[in-house]
């Protein structure tokens, strides 16, 4: 088996290609994450810039405006920090320690992702519902929106759970 392993053919990657691979801008996964985050951040920045006129921010108290802006700013901050965190996969001096540490980090990111999105949703609902006369129809509409937001939070959490569960299993299997 060792002879076969040693005899197995591998491709050859030239120096120029290797040099490009070291650059973050050519990283296949980070490039996609970066593009997605930049689009999201750009959209949020546009909202922050235009909401005052477009969504009658001037007719609401300063505190409500502040909640709305903070909601978006913290979401932008989370996006940037998650991008920076996604770059470092190696967290320890051996596989077991590294995967355990990385899993801990993912759990923190999971909570941060859910909390950040929940704060953003709460800020949006607070802003748009402020000053509204709440009748039954509006109450039902707000409830439906809140439920949809809740479902989104559950889906975000579940997508993180899947990866965390897999890595926890791998970490346990390494020392079993």
């Amino acid at each position: 088996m060792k002879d076969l392993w040693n005899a197995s053919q591998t491709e050859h990657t030239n120096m120029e290609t290797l040099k490009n691979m070291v650059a973050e801008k050519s990283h296949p996964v980070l490039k996609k994450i970066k593009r997605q985050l930049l689009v999201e951040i750009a959209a949020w920045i546009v909202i922050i810039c235009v909401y005052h006129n477009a969504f009658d921010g001037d007719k609401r108290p300063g505190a409500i405006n502040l909640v709305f802006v903070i909601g978006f700013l913290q979401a932008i901050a989370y996006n940037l920090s998650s991008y920076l965190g996604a770059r470092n996969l190696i967290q320890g001096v051996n596989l077991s320690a590294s995967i355990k540490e990385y899993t801990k980090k993912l759990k923190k990111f999971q909570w941060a992702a859910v909390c950040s999105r929940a704060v953003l949703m709460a800020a949006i609902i607070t802003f748009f519902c402020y000053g509204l006369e709440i009748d039954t129809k509006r109450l039902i509409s707000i409830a439906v929106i809140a439920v949809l937001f809740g479902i989104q939070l559950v889906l975000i959490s579940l997508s993180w759970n899947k990866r965390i569960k897999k890595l926890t299993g791998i970490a346990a299997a390494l020392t079993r």
Partner: protein
Amino acid sequence: MEEKDFLQLISANQGIIHKISKLYTNTPEDRQDLFQEIVFQLWRSMDNFRKEAKPGTFIYRISINTAITSFKKDRTKKILDYTDQLPEIAAETGDVTLLERTNALTAAIKKLEETDRAVMALLLEEMSYREIAEIIGTSENNIAVKISRIKGRIKKLLNA
């Protein structure tokens, strides 16, 4: 370490990265992405490279770590088909090519759990139980038990 020295080190040891990329992916596109991810992670980890450690050991550790922890889009669940003969038996009969036999071995290893694939790759690189235990982060005894179990599973897979 300077980028130039790093690239020379990677170029000289790229066979390791290609082998690990092959063991943890199912399509050429995924393999290429994982190869790049490993090179990127190696570059970011170079500050932690201790001169006393063998470069090959360090590259294996980071490569396996990256292969296991990186987020992989599984473009296909289909695993490569592999021949149903033990390589040793195939060699005796002489009716299959070396390429087919190496592919059969690779395919059999890919059927193992991700952690067992790592141990098997390190064993095939002729690392000692102690070296494997250090890379994995467990005891030599544990590695010995694992290897015994993995060898049995590989034989079953190749005989199936």
